[in-house]
């Protein structure tokens, strides 16, 4: 999203422009960007939309898939991560991710010039955009919030609250911030410089959370009763409401990543919608064929799979590309949440890896296939540029390796100190009561 350098001059036109008769668009002006209120309005709203994706969106989506005794704890996880990351991001996270950095670490990390947001004035614009830096910082914060909230899906029903808070703190600074920097820090980020395309966070958000979730569930181990007891979701309506709010909020996620309210944002919204719809249709269709009954959870999972896969591609692909990405994502993630998981035998409780990890990889690669010069300026495989697919694969690999290694070390560190997992009694009693002293009546 940081790639949009063209600056619309906005409301306050310079007199010079006015005098240049016939200049229809302000984009030809190259002087310092000025604040555009329309872009600002759109990004304020997008920030609200993406926050809504986590609370209550994701909170409900996940809470709707657990057993009754863990519903409140699951809501609490998303809610507390929101609060914690808010503080962390303001204090140091944003600075690490989005400032230029120095010397050899600059491709991986920013510097400390925005610690506690010092230096971010009321009228500072975010570099390369027409919106206040405060709005940009906030918008990015909502991405930093949802990513760790997503990975909890793999650890649901058994992770300690204290361990989770500790893990998220370390992970935000050592995994999320650097990967966001690599992909999106306009001047210095490693992957962005390579030319890896990730419009709204296929690598940074989805592969990242999916892989961290997978590593986590391998270390934490299976839930007690896995394979013998019923883990049937207690209240699937929550999952449907959550998926719906994720869908709606995703417009802020993807179209907002244009950083401006123009035709590219409109196109990003269009492909987002088409992919979500197509993936839900393809997941339901497959399930209907194989399992005889199309399930509500299948429809919701399909839509989310499509949204995940289109995330890196939105802003780069045309409508037909969006449709195809959705159809493919629905099918592949169905396999990710069923075949793959059973084959490998890990207990990815709410399919963070099966949907976000797998969907994110599919989307990142297909972005390289369907990228359309007319939409985002970069051609993909179908327009005779196979190198983009390779580039995308490299981006995926770097993300997976960095995320897996650092996450692994963090989990192990916390397991040795605080301990990652609740006791068997607490797990059986349910996290709601054992960790938070509350019961859903």
């Amino acid at each position, binding site marked *: 999203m940081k790639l949009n350098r063209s600056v619309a001059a906005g409301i306050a036109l310079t007199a010079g422009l006015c005098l240049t008769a016939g200049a229809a668009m302000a984009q030809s002006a190259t002087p310092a960007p000025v604040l555009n209120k329309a872009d600002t309005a759109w990004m304020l709203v997008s920030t609200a939309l993406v926050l809504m994706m986590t609370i209550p969106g994701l909170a409900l989506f996940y809470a709707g*898939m657990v057993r009754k005794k863990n519903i409140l704890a699951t809501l609490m996880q998303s809610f507390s991560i929101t609060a914690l990351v808010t503080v962390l991001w303001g204090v140091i996270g944003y600075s690490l991710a989005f400032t230029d950095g120095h010397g050899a670490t600059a491709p991986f990390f920013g510097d400390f010039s925005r610690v506690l947001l010092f230096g971010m004035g009321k009228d500072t614009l975010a570099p390369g955009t027409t919106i206040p830096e405060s709005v940009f910082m906030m918008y990015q914060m909502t991405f930093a919030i949802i990513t760790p909230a997503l990975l909890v899906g793999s650890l649901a029903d058994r992770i300690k609250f204290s361990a989770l808070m500790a893990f998220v703190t370390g992970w935000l600074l050592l995994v999320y911030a650097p990967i966001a920097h690599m992909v999106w820090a306009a001047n210095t980020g490693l992957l962005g410089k390579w030319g890896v395309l990730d419009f709204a966070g296929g690598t940074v958000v989805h592969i990242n959370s999916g892989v961290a979730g997978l590593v986590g569930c391998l270390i934490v181990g299976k839930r007690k009763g*896995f*394979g013998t007891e019923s*883990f*049937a979701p207690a209240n699937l309506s929550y999952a449907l409401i959550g998926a719906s709010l994720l869908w709606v909020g995703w417009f802020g996620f993807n179209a907002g990543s244009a950083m401006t309210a123009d035709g590219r944002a409109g196109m990003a919204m269009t492909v987002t919608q088409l992919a979500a719809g197509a993936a839900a249709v393809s997941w339901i269709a497959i399930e209907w064929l194989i*399992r005889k009954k199309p399930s509500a959870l299948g429809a919701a999972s399909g839509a989310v799979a499509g949204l995940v896969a289109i995330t890196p591609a939105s802003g780069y692909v045309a409508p037909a590309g969006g449709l195809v990405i959705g159809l493919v994502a629905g099918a592949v993630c169905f396999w990710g949440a*069923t075949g793959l998981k059973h084959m490998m035998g890990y207990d990815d409780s*709410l399919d963070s890896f099966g949907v976000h990890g797998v969907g994110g990889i599919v989307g990142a690669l297909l972005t390289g296939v369907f990228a359309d010069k007319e939409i985002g300026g970069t051609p993909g495989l179908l327009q005779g540029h196979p190198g983009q697919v390779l580039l995308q694969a490299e981006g995926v690999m770097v993300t997976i390796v960095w995320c897996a290694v650092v996450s692994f070390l963090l989990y192990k560190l916390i397991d040795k100190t605080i301990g990652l997992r609740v006791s068997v009694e607490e797990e059986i009693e349910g996290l709601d009561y054992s960790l938070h002293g509350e019961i859903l009546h």
Partner: protein
Amino acid sequence: MKLVMAIIKPFKLEDVRQALTPLGIQGLTASEVKGYGRQKGQTEIYRGAEYNVSFLPKVKIEVAVSDDLAARVVEAIQTSAHTGKIGDGKIFVFDLVNAMRIRTGETNDEAL
């Protein structure tokens, strides 16, 4: 007096109630229970391993009747709750030592 307790499939509740009315049964108490038996539930697909759901939703009916009605009540329940498929449920009969209507304090058969 007897207390007849039946575990039935939830959607049969209305049918059973209607079958009891002609016998002069004016009241009964129902509750939601979970039954474990020969009938196995569906297989879970996502968000958990595949396995058979062991407990299925059932409805428990409790109806207090005079001794002479008991047999006909059992029969009426069996007929109306019957589908012939596994999981139809059970009927159990208990002796009642005493019964009382709270509103009036009436006891035994008059209380039913």
